[in-house]
């Protein structure tokens, strides 16, 4: 790909990016959020068209005018959000769009044969009859990879493949990638987890502000220099210093015996003003479900919630918000934002009553608070009127934060606050959490990134099978102890 240019309203997403990939290599593509990685990959996949520039495959210029064309050229895409049909089985998903037929009828036996052949090549076992929605995230990802291979992909693009995987699943994925490259398949690997790149990639290309900054062999590119290239400045410590919790700090959130239909049971926890409590655990352990129950996203079936000493009857999101609980969801596109609405409309959505009189919205007050939040959180947007759909992931996340910050809540529940966003934006969000502590708020943070939980929590609670199984103060929370509690090893020992 040479000199690719792509503009959107208000944003020049790509401004002359070049990228070359050779067979059998894992080529990492890194850059801050909004740098243009996703756009570049969408152009390669035929989901969008470049305004300028050229693409060559095996030295021949090609025109990728749609997903079918990309597929015919041997390009396979595995997006962060998978493209499986939830109610179809593994086999049906793998052969989707290329169903073998016998005359007019589907040839089920041939389909199963093809799917199992690909899976056998990869050395993975999947429950073939299960509909895709019953599979784990890691299994769904394997189906996606098998699907790409069944279509004879020679280049597979993976967008943040490890974002939702556990350590063990990541090991399995890396083994799988090694098998692919040994067979001559090239992999373009997009990730924010820089620490995994030396393990998996041969070369790294850094893009920034829509331009290629550097392509280099991974071993010649130490981590700190990589970060410097990505952000265009050096970033020192990952995590800010957490201010200590004063011994006399009052309890802002007290949860007793909480349960909900989605799994959590007998959950007890306390958060004091100025304290971050981290919820650690494996994916699927029930951490998200616990904060959802506190926030009223799932209605609790038992137990009590107190905010600032006052009992709260949580029977829906509204009652929790009224009581001073803000819930920053893990999936900003599906749960956090109305993508078709502007930055302004999203910012005030949860507190519109404060910006309205007698039911009529006060447009001037709305614009003023939005301008203030754009400034304070440094949201990169042309104006408050820009549709959130057109912003990059990190900036979308900041809009979600703005939405809750304007309410001055007593308790903030962060569910995966930095998932899929870049190093620079991460640091900003951490700094913001510290700022909230200074204002006297309490924070519960769910995170799948162990370093984040350990680095950003005063106390760590470990969740397994819907309940809190262990508690560590910051000094005692070591990676092996937390992981042991999360996997249940210590209980067995």
């Amino acid at each position, binding site marked *: 790909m040479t000199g690719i240019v792509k*503009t*959107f*309203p*208000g*944003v*020049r997403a790509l401004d002359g990016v070049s990228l070359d990939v050779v067979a059998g290599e894992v080529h990492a593509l890194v850059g801050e959020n909004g740098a243009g990685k996703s756009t570049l990959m969408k152009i390669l996949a035929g989901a969008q068209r470049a305004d300028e520039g050229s693409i060559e495959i095996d030295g021949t210029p090609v025109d990728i005018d749609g997903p079918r064309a990309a597929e015919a050229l041997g390009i396979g895409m595995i997006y962060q959000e998978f493209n499986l049909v939830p109610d179809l089985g593994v086999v049906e998903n793998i052969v989707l769009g290329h169903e073998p037929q016998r005359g007019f009828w589907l040839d089920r036996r041939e389909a199963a044969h093809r799917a199992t052949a690909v899976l056998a090549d990869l050395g993975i076992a999947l429950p073939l009859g299960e509909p895709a929605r019953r599979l784990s995230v890691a299994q769904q990802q394997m189906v996606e990879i098998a699907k790409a291979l069944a279509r004879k992909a020679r280049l597979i693009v993976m967008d943040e493949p490890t974002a939702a995987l556990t350590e063990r699943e990541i090991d399995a994925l890396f083994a799988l990638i090694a098998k692919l490259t040994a067979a001559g398949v090239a992999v373009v690997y997009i990730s924010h987890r820089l620490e995994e790149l030396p393990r998996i990639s041969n070369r790294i290309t850094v893009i920034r*502000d829509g331009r290629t900054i550097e392509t280099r062999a991974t071993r010649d590119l130490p981590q700190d220099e990589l970060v410097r290239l990505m*952000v*265009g*400045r050096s970033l020192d410590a990952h995590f800010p210093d957490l201010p200590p919790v004063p011994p006399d700090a009052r309890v802002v959130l007290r949860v007793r015996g909480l349960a909900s239909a989605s799994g959590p049971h007998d959950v007890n926890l306390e958060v004091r003003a100025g304290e971050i409590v981290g919820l650690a655990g494996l994916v699927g352990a029930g951490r998200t479900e616990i904060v959802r129950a506190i*926030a009223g*996203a799932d209605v609790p079936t038992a137990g009590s919630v107190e905010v600032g000493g006052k009992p709260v009857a949580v029977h*829906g*999101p*509204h009652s*929790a*918000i*009224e009581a001073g609980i803000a*819930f920053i*969801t893990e999936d900003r596109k*599906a*749960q*956090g*934002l*109305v*993508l*078709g*609405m502007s930055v302004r*409309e999203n910012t005030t*959505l*949860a507190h*519109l*009553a404060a910006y*309205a009189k007698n*039911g*009529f*919205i006060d447009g001037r007050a709305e614009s003023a608070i939005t301008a203030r939040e754009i400034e304070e959180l*440094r949201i*990169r*947007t*042309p*104006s408050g009127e*820009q549709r959130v759909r057109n912003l990059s992931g990190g900036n979308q996340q900041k809009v979600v934060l703005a*939405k809750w910050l304007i309410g001055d809540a007593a308790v903030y529940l962060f569910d995966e606050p930095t998932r899929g966003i870049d190093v*620079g934006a991460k*640091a*900003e969000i951490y*700094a913001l959490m510290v700022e909230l502590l200074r204002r006297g708020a309490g924070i519960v943070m769910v995170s799948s990134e162990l370093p984040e939980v350990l680095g950003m929590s005063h106390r760590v609670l470990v969740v397994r099978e819907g309940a809190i199984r262990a508690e560590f103060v910051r000094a005692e929370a070591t990676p092996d102890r937390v992981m042991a509690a999360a996997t249940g090893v210590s209980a067995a020992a």
Partner: protein
Amino acid sequence: MNQPNDAAPVAAELERSAELARAKASRAQLLRTLGLAGGLIVLVVVINVFAHGSFLTPGNLTNVLRQITYNAILAVGQTFVIITAGIDLSVGSLIELTGVVMATFANAMPFGGAGLIAATLLVGLLVGCSAGLINALPVVKLNLPPFITTLAMMLMARGLAFKLAHGRPVPLNSNAFDGMGTGFLFEGLLKPLGLPGIPIAVLWMAAIVIVFSIVLTRTRFGRYVFAIGGNEEAARLAGINVGLAKTMVYVISGGCAAVAGLLYMARFASGSPNTGIGSELQSIAAVVVGGTSLMGGRGSIVGTFFGALLIGLLNNVMDLLNIESYTQEIALGAVILIAVIVDELRKRYLTR
């Protein structure tokens, strides 16, 4: 937070390109409006020649406005429903049911005048809004598709209207509604301009369009309607009472059907159980031609009004040109299809 200083030029760059994009968008908008207006003027002149001058007369244009009254009012309610990504198929039948109930009620009352109109309207609204409530409850409580619940209401309301009316129109005894049905306002004032005055029914329509346009664009409720259509889960987690807002849109739609039913009854001096057949589809057509997305989250009442106006003009022109009704239906269908295609292409051009 340590502030990177190179963010400033980036921001300036963004600002500049945003300006360009906005300029491009507004140019495209202007071109489209000019193109549309120019095209319409040429079309209107050509049509007027073919219709031997009978189209561009104040009397005929006033007539068009009066003809679209019922559809425009139904479409206002329908717009609210469709922005929440729902649909209301019952409005046509509700014109009939409310018309029959209101005519029966008015006949039974011993008094007349404005009091009778107010009381009758109230009864109609009660019926229409209750039907809207019944439409909404299964949608809100059980998450059933509104297509089904309003389809069921369409059948039930029509059946009930026939039953109550014993299968034939209920003629109005009172003449209290004559002004509303056929009367004009400002006759003296507008005579020098060659206008017959403004039909009272058209004023009702104007009031409803203006009031609900303000409700949709300026109130919290209006904002919530858009938010629910754009992303219902995000709206719920923002503490919005999604169930209440969704209930409200169906109640508004039922209420609009009741007002349309009142005007219909006044116009024809009877409540008839079969006047509304196909009206629900006409109202949906007006909404869609007016640029409201059937996927929810996007739309406007003003757009809906122009959608209804465009369809009304088209019907009127084809009448004047003596085009037979079968051909009219074909033309109308084609116009709806073209309108939504043009709208989609325009959106793509703007987001490019």
